[in-house]
């Protein structure tokens, strides 16, 4: 192969086109000064599909075949074939942002339906049609809080149990907005509300809490936290995920001003952390929302149609005064998530969420019976995952368990974390056996 397999020109065509342009060769078309012309070789060969596919399969086969009991913000739920199949229709997959709405109605409608699902699940009236992931959604929420709070406030309060990825991203997102992040303590895996009451002050722009937490705990004090935030005119931001939303108290009902979190739990297979951030908020912050919004309108015939809207918030119009720099986002992942929610339907969503509670409870009870293991560490209600105490050093236990073919998190010297969903529950017996052997 001497050319791109995806450039369809025949040699005769190329010659005719060069003639039409009035040059003798393609090289003549490049207006690059000699001083910066690259005349070396990049040093990589072209390969046939067949050969390259074999190579990539062999490379990826170097991954160990482990059953993952992993979570901490990134979850493996079974993705229905309908999602995998129809999301790959090329009209969806290979389209661009819907800057010409008349010819991209299909995608716009799916995104409108995605927003609608989030509005139903959060109880908040405005949801955007994607952030990169839960961490960047949290960062955007903090920046929004900094803009809408007109006091001299500058502090964002977050739980001690915050995923390191989220914490790292949040630091970078708030630094340029002159905000600072402070941590409040947790008590038995849930928020220490008294400590939060002491920590909140007039300089607090946002109070952030999660349910389920990083430890898989369903937070019991959300309504109180919402009230604390409200008393200090701080935004109450709730972090959660799209499956939990089907079961847990509606964020709007506990006073959430912004809801962020992961929507990729539905729609994406475990993809080494590739995500989809959800973002929903109150109507009063509509013009401060980051990212894209799809709205209903009508066309020349008066028929309902959809379009990107309120684009004056966005970087291509507002430049440095935009609400966010986000341009390319996770639209196709949102499409997959919407398809997954639709596939489950109302019953399926609630059932799946309930299974996240019962699976975690059942597995924790079984692990608790293993000598040298206590689970769950926190005497709370859990969602999908929980912390396990091991009398033996946790790292050694995790390593033994991995040798038996299972991956779990190490979260402390004597603490592991285990996450169970419908995709790995059938391996629960074997996991318990591996624990018995390891401790």
């Amino acid at each position, binding site marked *: *192969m*001497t050319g*791109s*397999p995806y*450039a369809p020109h025949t040699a005769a065509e*190329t010659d005719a086109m060069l003639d039409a342009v009035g040059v003798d060769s*393609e*090289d003549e*078309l490049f*207006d690059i000064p000699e001083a910066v012309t*690259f005349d070396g070789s*990049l*040093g*990589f060969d072209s*390969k046939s599909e067949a050969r390259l596919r074999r190579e*990539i399969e062999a*490379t*990826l086969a170097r*991954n*160990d075949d482990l059953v*993952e009991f992993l979570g901490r913000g*990134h979850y493996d739920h079974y993705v229905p074939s309908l999602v995998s199949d129809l999301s790959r229709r*090329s009209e*969806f997959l*290979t389209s661009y942002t819907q*800057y*010409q709405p008349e010819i*991209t*109605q299909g995608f716009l409608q799916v995104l*409108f*339906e995605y*927003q609608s699902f989030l*509005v139903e*699940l959060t109880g908040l009236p405005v949801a955007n049609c994607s952030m990169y*992931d*839960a961490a960047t959604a949290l960062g955007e929420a903090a920046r929004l809080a900094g803009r809408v709070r007109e006091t001299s406030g500058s502090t964002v309060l977050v739980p001690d149990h915050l995923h390191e990825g989220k914490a*790292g991203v949040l630091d970078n997102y708030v*630094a*340029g907005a002159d905000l600072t992040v402070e941590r409040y303590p947790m008590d038995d895996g849930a928020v220490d509300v008294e400590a939060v009451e002491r920590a909140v002050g007039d300089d607090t722009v946002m109070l952030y809490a999660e349910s389920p937490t990083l430890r898989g705990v369903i937070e019991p004090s959300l309504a109180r936290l919402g009230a604390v935030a409200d008393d200090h005119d701080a935004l109450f931001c709730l972090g959660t995920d799209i499956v939990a939303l089907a079961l847990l108290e*509606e964020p709007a009902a506990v006073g959430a001003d912004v809801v962020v979190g992961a929507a990729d739990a539905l729609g994406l*297979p475990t993809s*080494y952390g*590739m995500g989809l951030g959800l973002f929903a908020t109150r109507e009063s912050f509509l013009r401060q929302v980051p990212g894209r919004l799809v*709205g209903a*309108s009508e066309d020349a015939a008066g028929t*309902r*149609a959809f379009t990107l809207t*309120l684009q004056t918030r966005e970087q291509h119009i*507002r*430049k*440095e005064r935009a609400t966010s*720099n986000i341009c*390319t986002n996770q*639209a*196709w992942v949102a499409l997959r998530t919407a398809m997954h929610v639709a596939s489950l*339907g109302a019953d*399926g*969503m609630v059932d799946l969420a309930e299974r996240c*509670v019962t699976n975690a409870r059942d597995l924790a009870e079984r692990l608790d019976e293993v000598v040298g293991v206590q689970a769950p560490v926190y005497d709370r209600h859990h969602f999908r995952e929980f912390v396990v105490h091991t009398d033996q050093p946790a790292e050694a236990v995790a390593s033994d368990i991995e040798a038996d073919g299972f*991956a779990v998190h190490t979260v402390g010297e004597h603490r592991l974390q285990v996450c169970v969903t419908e995709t790995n529950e059938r391996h629960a017996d074997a996991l318990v056996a591996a624990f018995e052997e390891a401790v």
Partner: protein
Amino acid sequence: MRYDQARYSTDGVYEPLLSEKDETAVEVDSELPDDLTRDSVTLPSLSEPELARHYTRLSQMNYGVETGPYPLGSCTMKYNPSFTEDVAALPSGGVHPDRSPESVQGTLAVLHGLQEFLAEIGGMDAVTLQPPAGAAGEFTGILVAKAYHEANGDERSEVIVPASAHGTNFASAAMAGYEVVELPSGDDGRVDLDALAAAVGDETAALMLTNPNTLGLFERDIVEIAETVHDAGGLLYYDGANLNALLGRARPGDMGFDIMHYNVHKTFATPHGGGGPGAGPVGVVSDLAEYLPRPQVRESDGGYELFDPERSIGKVHGYAGNWLVLLKAYAYIARLGDAGLRDASAKAVLNANYLASRIDLDVPYGPFHHEFAATAGDRDAAELAKGMLDHGVHPPTTKWPELVPEAMLTEPTEVENRSSLDDLAAAFNSVVTADEETLADAPTRTAAGRIDQVGAARNPRLSWHALDGDDADDTA
């Protein structure tokens, strides 16, 4: 070519919303205490065949690269090979991001391989794959610049951005806390060295530049530009949106750029997915490698390991970025190799020049590379675009960059052949001669007719919950 997009319609709506087909309220009856759970959830509950038809119809009411030409300037809408989709769907591609590095050697091998590919293509020394989109790459790059200056005890407050740059450049620099200094373009559409000299100073942290720029023009004075910025102690940032014009022919690193991002969803043909996911890896020269996000992948004893660069800026994504997109980019680059990449640029540039020579609109400035900004003159570029929608082609980017009045920024990419470009030119030439009334009625062959975008913004209805009561309005 005449184009008729599929259109489904029932009583004042096109394909009905899922909520209009069914809404089922389910009571939540959990073992959890009542105060932890919601009372009910109302969602559509449709059968799989109904959903399959819904999404198939909606897909038919959407236009993609595999539907026809998509010459959106600065967006590089290439054909997305089926091959890379198949590779990304391999079951072994899916692993949890918290797996131990020892257990995901295959994933790390691909990531490392892509880092190496990108470093070579860009003439950079180190690459991070973490940023999940081009704008996230810009933000990352500017954070790296900031960390570098701060480590040198040299806090600077400004980032210079040419007026014609992508809006993301301005927004990303502002997001990192910088004042944005807008640099006017010179008479030839390129950076004016005098204006640059006047803008650069002790407060300059970086200049963000696209090359070829957003008019498709190569910044021929790039060596002088780099010198000016470096002499003032600033860094030079390369916006990779237009890298498709240069593959294997010029490298940002060789031009004096210190930091760059790659839009793998543009240059390396991963699908745009209707607006993402993309990926925006960032490359840097060796002096800046220690500031890259953590963790990074490197080789060790015949395998791969993760490490945190010494002065890392931290994280710009919760995990490792958009892995599936990165995997597709890796497969694409490995498939094409050196010769294929060079040819892709050659054909992209040839196609742009050929198309420009075939359309009945002025193309100011030049010579241009992979894209050109034609001017609609006294016509409204956005109106011409609406007219083009009926011709089986997606219109170009309109009214941007502002340097060209009523711009139609056109980038055919390498994936169109001569007859396809001739069709595209015919679509242009047809709308150029169309009268204004005809254009005002366009489009007529797309799924929906001209959409009231002003109304959508004035009366935001952002979910089906906000549509309740619409029926009453319609009959009033």
